[in-house]
Each structure stands twice: as C-alpha cells, then as structure tokens.
C-alpha cells in the first residue's frame, strides 16, 4: 500500500485509482439506496403495524 498509486488521465482530470474507487463506491451506494426496497414498507396496506395518524 505504500507504493505510489496509479493515476488515470481522463481529459484534464488526473485522478488516483483509490480516489476513483471511493467516488464510484459513493455513486454506487447512492443508486443502490434509491433502488433497493426498504424492509417492510413497500406495501403500506399490508403492514399490520401501520397506524393512520
């Protein structure tokens, strides 16, 4: 891990592979959070614990 990182040149952007991985991971987590169903609440009428307020 102590050897210098590999750098990618994408146009005028020069980014290290580790930083790129961090950014891609962030975007991936965000998209996954948008799409993944949240346990128990996708069918509100079927949730026995729902209370109208």
């Amino acid at each position, binding site marked *: 891990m102590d050897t210098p990182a590999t750098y990618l040149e994408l146009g005028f952007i020069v980014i290290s592979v580790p930083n790129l991985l961090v950014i891609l991971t962030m975007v991936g*987590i*965000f998209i996954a*959070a*948008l799409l993944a169903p949240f346990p*128990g*609440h996708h069918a*509100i009428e079927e*949730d026995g614990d*729902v209370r109208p*307020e």
Partner: protein
Amino acid sequence: MSAPSSTPATTSVPGPADTTWAGAVRRFLERNLPLTHLLPSRQPFFVGSWVYIFGVVAITSLVWVVGSGIVLASFGPGWWHIEAMGRFVNSMHFWSVQLLFLFTALHLWGQYFMASWRDGRAPTWIVGVLVFLIALVTGFTGYVSQQNFDAQWIAINAKDGINATGAGSFFNVLDFGQMYGLHVAVLPATVAVALAIHVMLVRIRGVVKPIEPPAPKDAAAQATSGSGTAKGGKA
C-alpha cells in the same frame, strides 16, 4: 391550547407563576421538543428508504472517529509511529474519517434531491452545511498534525492559500502545537455542538413531507379532494 400528553404531575400544580430559569427551559422543551418528539417510536411511512440512513451512518462514523481519536490522544502524537497497536488505531481513525466524509456527502446529495429545506427547515440545512465545513477544517488540522511527510507537505502547500485570506495571522498551519490543540479539543467540541443543534432541529420539526406533485391544470380535477392530483403526475 391542549396540554402536552406527557406532562408530569409536578408541573400542573396551580399556584404562583414559576419564574425560574429552569422552569423556562423546561417549558421551552415541553413546547418544542417533548421526549415523544426527541425519541419517537414511529415515523411517517414515507421514511422507508435507504436514503434516510446516510445521516445516522455519518454520525456513527463520527463516533468511531472520535473514539479512535481519544485513544490516539491518550497515548500522545508520537505513539502511532512506533507501536503496531498505535498504527492500527490510527488506521481505524483514517478509515472512519473516509467513511464520515463519504456518508456526509451521500447525506447531502439525498437531502438536496429531497429538497429537505422546505416547510421551515432552512435553518436545518444551513446548520448541516456548517457542520460539514467545521468537519473539513477539523480534518485539515488532523492531516497537518500527523508528524510525517504528508503533514509536512500539506502544511507547506496549504499555508499560501490560508495566508492569502488573512487567516494565517491567527491560524498558523506550520505551528504543530496550535493545529494539534485545535484538532483534539476545540474543533471536535465545535463539531459536536453544531451536530447536536442539527439533529435537534430535525427532531423539533420532524422529517419533511414528500415533494407534492404539481397541481393539474384542469381546475375541475383540482376541486376534488386530491385523488386525481397525483395520477400519472410528474414533477
């Protein structure tokens, strides 16, 4: 005006007005942040999205940052360079900082696209950005406190930008003592206070409601109770 449902018996005793400061604070809390709102057991059902966990994950990352930081501070700034356990604790500190900023950014994106500042929640947004900014400065003071090549590099290269603002006369990035003191004491406390205010504001107002679909141009449809307003609607 209805009395709060959780009023303890001692506050409903009639008699001379309570002019104590303690009483004023207590009434403020009862009016604005009763325990049922600070620690509710239920949420509006639309909070059923993974996007809502980014904030709490950022907070728990901060818990790990502070916890590992307390251990590092307890053994002094030189410990992690010479002891394997110190290096491990420093690694916990390093990666929890990475997670903190990662999930803070995700939380920012989520709240932005939910326009969570609506309905009187602009102060919550503003304080949230301030927490982020203070955390950035805290991280910076940490980087220049490492006492290694990275710290030397960042201090020497950052000084010109900071000096250009005039802040360099008060905030000397080359002064390890000052940077370390800010990093382990002053700034973590500031982050904690700002974060507490941010979380309290969220709990005082409750989660913002979903963005309403635009009203249809058909006035007749608008006259109904709203069953048609969201039909096939797009933002």
